[in-house]
């Protein structure tokens, strides 16, 4: 199976090619920063259902997917979008109404689970979570686990430290690896082979990408290979992990991309208000997601003025003194 050297393609093709009904997916970013929103909207537009989503704190993207009814199972550490929605609203409703099955972990556990997947080992150890209900309460039943080979047989396992009391630990908690079918991330720069450069915090994007069977990258800038190779120290994801590269400027809007644009707190608040009722949320998604053909049409709908207001200051990387209340 030869890997093509040029992996660029339109986003709708990449989603169609790699994200299927029932796929296990993960998305990059954290709460209100660098969520792969263009990819999320495209999944919604293509009406892909029954997705199994692995998330640490993937706020804005997660709530859109849940609100659109794309998700049936969720493994998660945190669902919030910062000040705009301290708890993701469609997420909370869906869990309360038992519309999705949800299993809880911590942010470190989820990070380690992706890291285990990236490393190719079945689990990683941690000293987090002893005595908590995260350890004892499972969101997926034993029978569900047995019937689905894509779900691990146990949520978490505690073992005695086989090295005595080495590192002052008597017990160790093991978290199982995640290897998603597809991971969707949004980065600042990528080349056509798929090598990626993330600017600012990487969250768990690198681990999520490396753990995944396929990776769809959307990027602010599609650059020449030579451009990225002028400083290999800044490139975190080499091309061999990546399946598709889609050039989507402002592809994380309305979440922030460090050095490019800030989050749009007005828009996020509007979505938060709409999320409070099913009807309002449907109207919102009808207008802003289903009502447009692609991300560029969506951005037209938002309008140049809003986009200009959130443009990043080149020195600080965010929009200085932007109105945020």
């Amino acid at each position, binding site marked *: 199976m030869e890997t093509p050297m040029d992996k660029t393609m339109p986003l709708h093709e990449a989603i169609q090619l790699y994200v299927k009904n029932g796929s296990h997916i993960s998305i990059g970013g954290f*709460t209100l920063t660098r969520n792969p929103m263009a990819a999320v909207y495209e999944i919604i537009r293509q009406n892909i259902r029954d997705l199994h989503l692995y998330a*640490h704190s993937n706020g804005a993207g997660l709530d859109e997917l849940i609100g659109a009814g794309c998700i049936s199972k969720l493994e998660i550490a*945190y669902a919030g979008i910062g000040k705009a929605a301290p708890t993701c609203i469609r997420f909370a409703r869906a869990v309360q109404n038992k519309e999705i099955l949800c299993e809880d972990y911590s942010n470190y556990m989820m990070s380690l689970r992706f890291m285990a997947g990236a490393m190719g080992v079945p689990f990683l150890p941690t000293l987090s979570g002893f005595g908590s209900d995260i350890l004892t309460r499972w969101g997926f039943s034993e029978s569900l686990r047995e019937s689905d080979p894509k779900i691990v047989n146990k949520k978490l396992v505690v073992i005695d430290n086989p090295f005595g009391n080495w590192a002052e630990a008597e017990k160790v908690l093991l978290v199982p690896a995640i290897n998603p079918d597809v991971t969707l991330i949004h980065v600042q720069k990528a080349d056509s082979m798929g090598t990626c450069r993330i600017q600012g915090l990487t969250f768990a994007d690198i681990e999520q990408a490396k753990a995944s069977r396929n990776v769809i990258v959307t990027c602010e800038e599609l650059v020449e290979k030579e451009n990225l190779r002028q400083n290999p120290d800044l490139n975190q994801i080499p091309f061999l992990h990546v399946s598709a590269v889609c050039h989507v400027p402002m592809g994380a809007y309305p979440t922030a991309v460090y050095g490019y644009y800030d989050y749009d707190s007005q828009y996020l608040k509007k979505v938060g208000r709409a999320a409070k009722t099913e009807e309002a949320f449907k109207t919102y998604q009808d207008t802003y997601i289903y009502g447009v053909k692609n991300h560029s049409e969506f951005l037209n709908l938002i309008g140049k003025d809003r986009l200009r207001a959130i443009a990043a200051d080149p020195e600080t990387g965010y929009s200085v003194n932007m109105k945020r209340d």
Partner: protein
Amino acid sequence: MNKAPAYTPKEIMTIMAAREIKNNDIVFSGTGISMLAAMAAKKINAPDSVIFFETGAMDSLLEEIPFAVADPRIMYRAAANSSLADAFATMQNRITGDKVIAVLGAAQIDIYGNLNTTCIGDYESPRIRFPGSGGGCDVLSFVPRCIAFMQHERQKFVRKLDYLTSPGQLAGGDTRKKAGLRPGGVSIVVTNLGVMRFDKDTGRMYLDKFYPGITQDDILSNTEFKMDVSKASEADPPTETELKILREDCDPQRLILGP
């Protein structure tokens, strides 16, 4: 009412927490008022303390208040930008983790300082679903000191949590150690009524300070479990200097402090 304090509840809460932060502390900060307390400590009493986020930013230069721990504002001029995995490893690692103090909030707390940020009602079909652990369970497992911000209400200071998201002293005594956890958990609770601490032997919460104008009874009637208030005294209110720095240098737009 000439004793009415010249500060809001959020202001005194922020100052009470800031005072607990020592110079050279590495301050793990959650969102909202936690960030403000960390910023205030740095500007008031602990100039060499360092603000640190679970998302991987160490010693961020906060020129504006971030709205989340992933806000681009925390990435600017940090000592290093890394990842979730790196940030939590720094806390799990005893050599560095022991230098960290955490500041965070919760939806429910019990007498042992265990926290719930997951749900109210049954886990499988909750009445109210909250965001979940985030890094809370990790931090309370790893670091020796933690300040928890709470609204002081009976349904939040409960006898039994609906879900134990983040471990405090579990069931008190040596139960935390026996479960496999290192010493740690919530050590200070700061509410709109007072400041609570934990007995070293029993692991139980007791009232340490009540704010000017607040009585022990106010606190007891807003706490579902039986709390020891016998050692309590009145808190020193925020000074003019503290309030001035908080209002003018930390949150001039009152984004967190509110009106």
